[in-house]
């Protein structure tokens, strides 16, 4: 069966239009980026506000006992915060598509719109592509916008101490433009897969959202000093997620089988 991009784009058009009119979902989509941007800016600001506080040095030495005596603990902790926070920032490109994709796939079942849709010439691959684009495009756009706000915010609050722009750095730039879209694809794939198996959008969201737990767990490991984040560390995460993305894409197209969907939910 031929893949017709026009039909996939039609699904994208409809889902994107529906999303723009879903005020409740838009608000919930904005909460996470706000937290992801404001929390690290706040942390950096606390370091800048009292750079000579004795406790900062103790904390810095916990993470790096070889920190030279003359080095600024505040600057060290700012750099460490920025490196570690990228792991947490990746929760956003995973979570936002989960919110959208759960609504768009399981929502079709809830609203009983699935049967008329499946009775049209659209194929399963076109449906998955259109719905995935409708979840990925806003998620990546939000991630990139949040990144720009984050960079500006960090540079403004850090300037009094470091007298130079800290952001965007190489790790964040590569991470946000290469690794974050892979994570977004992962979140979307999980949501599509789970939405195809459950009957309610809310249940799909709740189950899909569990995939952020390993990411949060890894950030916890970084903060506890067990894991040392860096360029290679995030590159490895990206490679693992890329493989998972390929598996999820394959499984999603298989699970969005017309007969299975109609006989279970139509």
């Amino acid at each position, binding site marked *: *069966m*031929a893949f*017709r991009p*026009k*039909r996939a*784009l*039609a*699904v994208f*058009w*409809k889902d994107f*239009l*529906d999303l723009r*009119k*879903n005020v409740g979902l838009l608000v919930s989509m904005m909460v996470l980026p706000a937290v992801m941007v404001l929390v690290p800016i706040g942390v950096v600001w606390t370091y800048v506000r009292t750079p000579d506080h004795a406790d900062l040095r103790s904390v810095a030495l916990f993470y790096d006992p070889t920190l030279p005596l003359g080095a600024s603990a505040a600057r060290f902790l700012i750099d460490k915060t920025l490196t570690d926070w990228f792991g947490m920032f990746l929760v956003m490109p995973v979570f936002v598509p989960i919110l959208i994709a759960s609504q768009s796939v399981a929502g079709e079942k809830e*609203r*009983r*719109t*699935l*049967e*008329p*849709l*499946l*009775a*049209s*010439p*659209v*194929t399963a691959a076109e449906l998955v592509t259109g719905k995935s684009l409708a979840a990925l495009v806003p998620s990546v756009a939000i991630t990139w916008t949040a990144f720009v706000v984050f960079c500006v915010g960090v540079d403004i609050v850090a300037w009094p101490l470091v007298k130079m722009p800290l952001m965007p750095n190489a790790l964040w730039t590569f991470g946000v433009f290469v690794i974050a879209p892979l994570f977004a694809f992962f979140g979307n794939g999980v949501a599509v897969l789970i939405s195809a198996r459950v009957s309610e959008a809310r249940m799909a969201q709740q189950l899909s959202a569990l995939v952020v737990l390993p990411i949060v767990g890894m950030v916890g490991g970084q903060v506890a000093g067990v894991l040392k984040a860096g360029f290679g560390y995030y590159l490895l995460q990206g490679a693992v997620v890329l493989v998972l993305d390929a598996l999820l894409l394959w499984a999603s197209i298989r699970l969005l089988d*017309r*007969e299975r969907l*109609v*006989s279970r939910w*139509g």
Partner: protein
Amino acid sequence: MSGIHVQDLGKRFGDRVAVEALSFHVRSGEVFGLLGPNGAGKTTTVRMLTGLLQPTEGEATVWGHRVDRDGEPLRKVVGLLTEQPGLYDRLTARENLRFFMKLHELDEAAAWPRARHYLERFGLGGREEEPVGGFSKGMRQKLAIVRTLVHDPKVIFLDEPTSGLDPESARTVRDAVAELASEGRTIVLCSHNLAEVERLCERVAVVKRRLLAMGPVRELRHAGQALEVRVEGEAERFRVALAQLPFAPNVLAEGPKLRVMLADDAQAPDVVACLVGAGARVHSAVPTQRPLEEVYLELLREGRG
């Protein structure tokens, strides 16, 4: 090959048989009624004929497309009105229709006049820019019908098309169905509204997992024909005499009225002669046909085993 050709069609879900050995043919330009109680397999049959479900037995073609292998071209020529309108509430009526135009890869500029024609016809003209969420049940149903027709389908499956509509709108829909059939389209109507089926359909099939009966509505009713005889006095006393007839008809007696079930018209004179011979003073003898509803219910009772 136009129309619908179904041969020994069946569908199993695991061990459960939903439909078995279904055979029928619907001509181009015909309105065909598919009747049966809830769970009889009507929806499963329609889903197989629209390429949504794969048959597990038999074969069927819809407008020349095999339902088991020509999914995409099949769905291009088929229009399906589902039991639930299935519209996108946050989208306007126009956006709902545009979405399906895009899915069918239609030139929207060319497809709009057709959509507008039906919107006007169903009283939705001027409401195109309103979100569907604010529509009444009847308006939603009518918009769903317009959506079903937007790609100019050759074969149309309508599941309870007048459900939720006021009498005037229901009549508009019925007129539209008749007009669509007159344009050479094949229409399959699933409905529990037997009066509507009787009015619209030339032929009906009564299914309950398998085919119980099929034929022109008139013939099915004819199969249930009776002779209503009004005699002087209590009619009950003539039952024994009628039982002596070679074809031993079923007889219902109530007051001065007898209802004698007939296998065919030719038996009517014998019934009257028998009654007269038994001393009855016959006031009137009127051949009647049972309403489709009665025939339908009897078929279901017979098919219960």
